[in-house]
């Protein structure tokens, strides 16, 4: 006989066991669920060197450091400047927690923070237009918020954007360095000993503010390149300004002069961008048909879009956009040799190699396919290489101008390799493996442009070439990453072995132009 109280006790015991077991497992699972970072964990930047001669380093677009005039600052005893210092002192007396965390965020490196923002904007805009009634409406720069939003930040668009922003910032910071050491104005905490320095010491003169130069360049260029990101862009600039002015590192006149310099340099770069050939890079239906006709005339099967409905090829005239280090004749001279004929036994073997790679893929190979996917909704391959460079720049404790140089060199090579790669792709108009052999299925969405040569391979070889130069003791890391990136496209089923081989070769050739520039730019 069971008594009701026994039954009750048994129920309670079960309830307790259930409860304790469940809570334990739930805690184990939620214990793993830590918050996911959306910014780099950068340590406060104490530069290894002030790079005081950076004002003499070779410019890329500006004619020289004085192309944009920065007027001399007021003397330290000036009442207006003294009022600026008093204002900093007052603000530092009642810092809020959010102000303190802003200061921490911006004490890492403004150059690297803006690079994070840029990657965010690229990913936010990296979506192709959706089909409407069987066709694809084009994004309209004059109505960027309309659907489809402008831009479609595909790899060439992104490569160009990364390069404009990085190079403009680099030229602007070299000019800033020139004026800093020309005027030698001490930082606020040095001019008023009651002011604390809440960021790491940079050892730099404060006028014009390097942070303000970064904010001026980035906010001006990004607003043009990614107009729908305007809120993120202007908030970022305001937050950097707030953090720097509270930190005791710069005063408001330091900021104003730096921001104006950054804006002026950005404007000079926008003038170049307006006439660099990008506006006609999308081509028109007659030009697209001509590309196919050219391939047919060579006895080759022309590339066709495998999307449904067929999508126009991605930026077929991007190969004619102005490069940074390559002249138009360099671009045509670096054209890769022709791919195997689409009717040749070698091409059949290559297609069979692709099919075999996909069907026999290992889990490790699959991991590289998705690590390097960098397709729609991503920072793109150029952004991926920016992300690879960031921890090296941070660990090297580069000054802001040297950090900017590194990103400028990497992105210069990436932009130029995008041009060379697109020039080659549309010269040969070579079909993807899945077009030649429809039984080939792919493991990542198929890029909508010709196969030969592989963009990932070319981008990666160019970027690793430059990074090898800047960080010679990387233990072969960059080259290994480039090889992995290149091979991931074979495993994923979207590139032939030849695409990869010649993409890597061509990328290195393009990268060397930037390395040769860097060897003689005065920064070594």
């Amino acid at each position, binding site marked *: 006989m069971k008594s009701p109280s026994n039954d009750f006790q048994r129920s309670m015991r079960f309830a307790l066991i259930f409860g304790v077991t469940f809570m334990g497992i739930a805690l184990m699972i939620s214990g793993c669920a830590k918050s996911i970072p959306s910014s780099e964990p950068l340590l406060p930047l104490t530069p290894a060197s002030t790079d005081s001669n950076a004002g003499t380093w070779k410019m890329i677009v500006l004619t020289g450091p004085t192309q944009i005039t920065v007027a001399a600052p007021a003397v330290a005893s000036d009442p207006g400047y003294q009022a600026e210092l008093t204002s900093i002192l007052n603000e530092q007396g009642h810092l809020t927690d959010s102000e303190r965390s802003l200061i921490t965020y911006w004490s890492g490196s403004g150059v690297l923070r803006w690079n994070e923002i840029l990657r965010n904007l690229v990913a936010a805009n990296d979506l192709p237009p959706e089909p409407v009634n069987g066709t694809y409406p084009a994004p309209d720069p004059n109505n960027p918020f309309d659907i489809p939003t402008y831009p479609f930040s595909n790899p060439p668009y992104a490569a160009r954007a990364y390069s404009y922003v990085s190079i403009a910032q680099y030229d602007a910071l070299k000019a800033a360095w020139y004026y800093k050491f020309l005027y030698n104005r001490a930082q606020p905490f040095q001019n008023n000993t009651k002011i604390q320095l809440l960021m790491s010491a940079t050892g730099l003169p404060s006028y014009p503010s390097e942070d303000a130069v970064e904010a001026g360049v980035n906010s001006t260029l990004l607003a043009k390149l990614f107009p729908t990101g305007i809120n993120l862009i202007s908030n970022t600039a305001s937050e950097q300004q707030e953090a720097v002015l509270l930190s005791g590192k710069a005063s408001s006149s330091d900021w104003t002069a730096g921001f104006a310099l950054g804006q002026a340099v950005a404007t000079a770069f926008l003038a170049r961008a307006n006439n660099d050939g990008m506006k006609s890079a999308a081509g028109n239906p007659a030009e697209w048909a001509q590309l196919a006709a050219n391939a047919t005339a060579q006895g080759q099967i022309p590339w066709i879009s495998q999307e449904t409905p067929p999508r126009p090829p991605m930026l077929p005239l991007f190969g004619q956009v102005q490069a940074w280090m390559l002249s138009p004749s360099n671009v045509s001279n670096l054209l890769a040799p022709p791919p195997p004929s689409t009717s040749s036994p070698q091409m059949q073997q290559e297609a069979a190699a692709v099919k075999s790679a996909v069907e026999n893929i290992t889990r490790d190979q699959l991991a590289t396919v998705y690590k390097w996917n960098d397709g729609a909704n*991503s920072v793109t391959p150029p952004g991926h290489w920016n992300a690879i460079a960031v921890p090296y720049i941070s660990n090297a404790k580069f000054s802001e101008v040297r950090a900017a140089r590194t990103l400028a060199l990497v992105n210069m090579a990436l932009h130029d390799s995008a041009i060379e790669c697109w020039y080659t792709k549309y010269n040969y108009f070579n079909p993807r493996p899945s077009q030649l052999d429809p039984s080939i299925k792919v493991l990542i969405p198929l890029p909508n442009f010709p196969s030969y040569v592989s963009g990932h391979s070319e981008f990666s070889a160019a970027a690793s070439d430059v990074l090898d130069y800047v960080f010679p003791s990387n233990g072969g890391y960059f080259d290994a990453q480039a090889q992995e990136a290149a091979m991931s496209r074979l495993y994923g089923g979207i590139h032939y072995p030849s695409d990869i081989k010649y993409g890597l070769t061509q990328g290195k050739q393009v990268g060397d132009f930037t390395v040769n520039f860097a060897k003689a730019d005065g920064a070594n």
Partner: protein
Amino acid sequence: MVTKSAVLSGTLYTHDAWDHYWEGTNNRTNGNLGTVTTQTLDFNAVYGFKNRINVLGTVPFIWTQASQGVLHGQKGFQDISLAVKYELIRWQLRQWGTVRVFPVVSGSIPLNNYEPDFQPMSVGLHAKTIAPRTTVNFQGLHGLYGNGSAAYVFRSNVTLDRNYYYTNGQLYLSNQVAMPNQFVYSVAAGYMGRGMMFVGTFAEQQTRGGGDIRPQDLPFISNRMNSSKAGGAAVIPIPLHLLHGLQYWFMYSNTFDGRNVGQSNTFTSGLMYQIQFHRRSAQ
């Protein structure tokens, strides 16, 4: 519930297909996918640990394919799920029937290192889950049957093969993806008696966070995947003298509303067999 030392086990085949899906809240088709078909073989077992405690387990093997476009189908074992179900309360309602209340704890763990970053072709999302559930069940004296169940599903972070991803309006610089938890509930009502069951079903899944699929993007594992499904289910005994306890199961559901999911038609069919290993007299 099965009785102590009984085992109900079998294999169910599910065919799930959609050609429309919700990109966020926008219902559309996609010429690069055509119809996406997911076939599942579920190996199921329910064990009567005690008369009032059942242990349930399922191992699914999954194949995916798209009828158009170039994306490669995937196949493999997905996540093993285990549940413990306890009959906490049994109310005899004299002229009506019996109401039972079951607390259930269920959990699932991926059976292998399948790739989750290839939606919608991946076989699963690769999250570990644990879910407390409450089930209330009514069995009328004349066969009227009703069942309601609600659960809150805690989901672990998922590790991707890449170091950054963009979702829900933000670039994340990590290979870790926080998976929003889910609230799910379902109801079934109809007839159960003489070893048979015929019910209409409704099931709802609400994901408590996550971003939408953006225009012309592919789905992402942490998307806010919501669905409302309606359908029916039948269990019919197969009268074989040599194999007493064999049942035919059939289920159908239609996803009539959703967000970031396919507008699926789902058919499940299979055989389940109940065996009593040893019977002990009631105390």
